[in-house]
């Protein structure tokens, strides 16, 4: 048994190479272990005090979000709210203030739940995960990283150190909309993220990704036909139809597959509309769920 509190990335990577598992906030790892889903790993290295993992670096072409950045910060950080708004929408919906204070974007990504809130926003914004070992880093697309519910393709000695996103062109907007039955301590029934760039009134690019309707977060295929067209009712209906058609949801305690398949289309449509409105310069406060009135009224 060992527990190390790392203060540098090198120290953490050495521990991980020696077999330790990383822990940041523990909001998945400790909760899961206490629920009896798995044993708490015998060798642990805490990575939440490594300053270099808790930075948001804006470069000329890319923005790098350190894996240790918490949801609390993501929902309020000016860079994220202004440029990668869907991530802020998602972070603001996670759990409660205490969950958001300890939960990190790296933990959310590597937990690899198909119901994770920051996943669909990261997909539509083109994020790659930076995976690091003592001997170097590589980047992997999220479609390659996530292989199933709670499963990913990273090697045991790799630590997710950042999520790297291309900077957004002008006239871009993004949004994440989640179907929820209550406004806190909730897990997505379904959710959808959209990223839109406009050329005048027409779509220059659009990406939509879906939460909790497949074994992993999935991106909606076949939306290129919308480029050059306005995001009008016909376009939105096509997005909704594509989302519902490509979803392969399960039935569980929270919703039936039929209900999920229908509502994912509604969420995709609303996310695309909100993203386009933001792209056209409209300010919609984070999280967009509140503006849309989703969740029980207060």
């Amino acid at each position, binding site marked *: *048994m*060992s*527990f190390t*509190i790392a203060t540098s990335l090198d120290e953490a990577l050495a521990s991980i190479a020696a077999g330790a598992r990383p*822990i940041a*906030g*523990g*909001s998945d790892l*400790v*909760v899961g*272990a*206490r*629920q009896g889903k798995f044993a*708490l790993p*015998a060798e*642990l290295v*805490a990575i*939440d005090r490594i300053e270099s993992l808790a930075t948001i670096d804006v470069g000329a072409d890319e923005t790098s979000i350190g894996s240790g950045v918490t949801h*609390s910060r993501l929902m309020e950080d000016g860079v994220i709210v202004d440029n990668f708004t869907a991530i802020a929408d998602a972070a603001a919906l996670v*759990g*409660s*203030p*205490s*969950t958001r*204070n*300890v939960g990190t974007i790296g933990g959310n990504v590597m937990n690899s739940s198909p119901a994770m809130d920051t996943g669909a926003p990261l997909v539509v914004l083109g994020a790659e995960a930076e995976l690091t070992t003592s001997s170097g880093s590589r980047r992997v697309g999220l479609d390659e990283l996530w292989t199933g519910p709670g499963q990913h393709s990273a090697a045991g000695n790799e630590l997710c150190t950042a999520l790297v996103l291309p900077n957004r062109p002008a006239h871009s907007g993004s949004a994440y909309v989640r179907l929820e039955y209550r*406004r*806190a*301590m909730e897990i997505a029934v379904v959710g959808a993220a959209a990223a839109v760039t406009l050329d005048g009134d027409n779509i220059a690019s659009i990406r939509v990704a879906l939460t909790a309707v497949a074994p992993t977060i999935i991106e909606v295929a076949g939306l290129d036909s919308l480029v050059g067209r306005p995001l009008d009712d016909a376009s939105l209906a096509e997005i909704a139809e594509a989302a519902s058609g490509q979803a392969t949801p399960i039935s569980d305690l929270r919703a039936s597959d039929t209900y999920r398949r229908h509502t994912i289309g509604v969420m995709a449509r609303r996310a695309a509309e909100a993203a386009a409105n933001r792209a056209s310069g409209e300010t919609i406060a984070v999280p967009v769920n509140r503006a849309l009135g989703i969740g029980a009224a*207060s």
Partner: protein
Amino acid sequence: MSDKHAIQLTVNGVPYDVTVDQSQNLSGALRNGTGLTGTKEGCDDCECGACMVLLDGSPVNSCSYLAVQAQGRDITTVEGLADGDDLHPLQRNILEHGGVQCGFCTPGMLMSARALLDRNASPSNEEIRIGLSGNLCRCTGYARILEAVEATAVEL
């Protein structure tokens, strides 16, 4: 290597030497290791907020946080609110507004409210609701708890 860790926790400004298992949660270490039993354990699942403490000023569910990971952090529990026999205004207001019945959720409510008011001296009703959204009450109801926080914000 032994599963036991001899650690020091700084709680309400006071250092406590405790010996814990690696898997020991912070709430258990506080209750059994330091004798500070104001922090409650409810769901043990990060849902109810009865175990809320502040770590470096931010609310954290201590039921699902490892005690060994809290080393070197400033931990504030409900026992750290009052100044001797003088109740913190949040404590006084939650009494005066009838925001306590069984009292089990109260320590956690107070810690979330304290963190909220430290960050935002005049929160809106909606901001108070968000600030307390990780705390469940199953007897008093939330209206009087919200009133107590609002009254404290006006007072401070």
